[in-house]
């Protein structure tokens, strides 16, 4: 994998916090981190994600579809956006387990590649390595496999 480190992991993490806040989430989860990378990464990685159908707009749509399907599994219909609009909470969302796991895994992927610092692509691979949770469900909806992500990122 080539080096694309102009945008640092710290910036992705900061952007993930913003993405979680914007969506009214109580915790910063790996889907927020993936959204942040899709929005902020340097062009090679951003283009690779877009080629996979994981550009920010598509991700946002897939996340809403995943939530609607999940609610439907419990017999609940989503409420219209206007019914849920409110002044956002001011407390910072806490770190979700999926984000912590992804960052630990990304560090491991970077070390296995002989690098001391993780990059955006490491984080994407780490997020995609999760077996269960919101992101795997979103990837299943988009019919994107972990193998296809790895292949595309290696070519970036």
């Amino acid at each position, binding site marked *: 994998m080539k080096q694309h480190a102009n945008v640092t992991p710290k910036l992705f993490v900061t952007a993930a916090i913003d993405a979680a806040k914007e969506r009214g989430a109580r915790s910063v989860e790996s889907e927020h981190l993936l959204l942040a990378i899709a929005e902020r990464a340097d062009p090679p990685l951003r283009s690779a994600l877009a080629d996979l159908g994981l550009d920010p707009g598509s991700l946002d749509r897939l996340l809403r579809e995943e939530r609607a399907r999940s609610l439907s*599994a419990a017999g609940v219909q989503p409420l219209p956006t206007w019914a849920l609009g409110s002044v956002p909470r001011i407390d910072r969302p806490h770190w979700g387990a999926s984000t912590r796991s992804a960052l630990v895994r990304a560090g491991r992927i970077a070390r296995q590649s002989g690098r001391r610092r993780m990059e955006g692509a490491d984080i994407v691979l780490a997020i995609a390595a999760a077996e269960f*949770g919101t992101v795997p469900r979103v990837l299943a909806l988009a019919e994107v496999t972990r193998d296809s992500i790895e292949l595309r990122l290696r070519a970036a």
Partner: protein
Amino acid sequence: MHDQRLAPASGVADALASVIAVRELADRLEDASVERALREGWSWPQIAEALGVTRQAVHKKHAGRFDSTDVPLRRRQS
């Protein structure tokens, strides 16, 4: 993945995902409903009682976000 029961989007996985989705919806609905109640003149004790929590709990959770907004805050029940 060979075992369909362990696919991320089927069966038990759907049920577990619905827990997250319902929790998230409930959180957002609480935020919107508390704001609506305040705009309609409800006091913190009334909102707390309706939500089945203490006044301190609802105030601590929600009051800060209405600072510097046009949402009216009733300090005491009249």
